[in-house]
């Protein structure tokens, strides 16, 4: 597994090529969320924070579910995913004045979210090197999962579902760092390879290669044809 540091995304200020790809992906810069982000930025600039927060709640509602899915599938830890998503939204609001329409809002937001997730993975790897890994997080996830399953769900189905989750998590964790990132964004984050290219700064053909290799490896690990 490659070092997560190696796939940390460049800042929006870096990489003219990445920005060009972002512009290409920004064919739909007039998307409602992008317009909303521009409105929020204007309101913040005018000092009308109350109205800015109200509008920002709309952005949170629009992107929260997808953000949670990406963060959870990437980090495989509910508490960390929760914090990563919260941090990303707070950071976006705090830096909304630096938002430029050249990037669609969701590309900008996903970039911030993914950078936060990468930092968390790095911190977790450092913790695991020095301390004994805790079962607390897994236990919390299991408790949340068990609590959310309908009570009439029979124990056998619950056990099978848990085993499936464990297999999927294990298979995803065995992907190379970039493969995992690209696969998570494309398959769980509903992004096209072109959008992932804009988010990550990777070449679009490189994204397609990583995506194909990730899918092939997962098919091999999860019992499909490789």
């Amino acid at each position, binding site marked *: 597994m490659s070092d997560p540091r190696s796939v940390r995304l460049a800042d929006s200020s870096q990489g003219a090529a990445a920005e060009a790809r972002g512009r290409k992906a920004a064919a739909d810069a007039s998307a409602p969320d992008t317009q909303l982000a521009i409105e929020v930025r204007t309101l913040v600039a005018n000092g009308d924070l109350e109205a800015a927060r109200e509008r920002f709640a709309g952005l949170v509602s629009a992107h929260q579910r997808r953000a*949670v899915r990406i963060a959870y599938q990437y980090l495989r830890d509910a508490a960390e995913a929760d914090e990563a998503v919260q941090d990303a939204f707070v950071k976006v609001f705090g830096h909304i004045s630096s938002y430029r329409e050249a990037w669609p809002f969701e590309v900008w937001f996903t970039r911030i979210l993914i950078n936060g997730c990468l930092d968390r993975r790095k911190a977790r790897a450092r913790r695991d090197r020095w301390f004994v890994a805790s079962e607390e997080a897994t236990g919390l996830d299991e408790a949340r999962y068990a609590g959310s399953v309908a009570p009439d769900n029979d124990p056998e189905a619950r056990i099978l579902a848990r085993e499936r989750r464990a297999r999927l998590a294990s298979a995803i964790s065995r992907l190379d760092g970039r493969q995992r990132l690209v696969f998570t964004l494309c398959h769980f984050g509903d992004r096209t390879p072109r959008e992932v290219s804009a988010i990550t700064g990777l070449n679009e053909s490189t994204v397609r290669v990583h995506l194909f290799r990730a899918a092939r490896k997962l098919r091999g690990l999860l019992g499909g044809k490789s």
Partner: protein
Amino acid sequence: MIGRVRHLQEDRLFDCYTAAQAGELPDPRSAAHIADCTECRARYDELVQFMDGLRQEADEDTAAVFTPETLRAQQQHIMRRIEHLGHPARVLSFPGRVVRRHFAPAAGRIAPRWTAAAAAAGLVIGVGVGVVFDSRNRVAAPSPLAMTISRTARPAAPVVSVAVEAPVADDDAFLSEIETVLGGPHNQELLPFDALTPRVQELLAGLR
């Protein structure tokens, strides 16, 4: 003439799947081949089934952990945190009644330094006095309980037994046993620590 049928490579099939997912047009030749070739069609269907299953499992997994209530709570957390953005941190005065005047930052740093020095001095004095009194008490009245390790019954596993009024010979046996163990091949690294540890005999002699 019957030509050899060339099936699509896995990456071509996957490109078709990716294009379909992104709402783009797939490569026309690949699309035509999938439409004509039964085997490639079956492979493509299998790929789609696998990828969709993976996606569905992940969706269910996330939805089970992040329920609508959790998402609502998360949204409230985010809005609360955003409300406090840019506000200076609220300072709680503690203890509220005692602290009545505001110290300059430099003066504020001096007081804890004195407190820390006094606390450290108190600790050192306390430990010193405690050690002296403890050693005197030990000399005056030896502890009625003595712990010995007996290896007579089971040599492999040392048995710890507590004996009342244990004889001095047992203490010697205990100490010699420790020395024997320390002299073993795997305990060389413990010898410096052993050298640093004061011997009971020496302490007793010093006190006499």
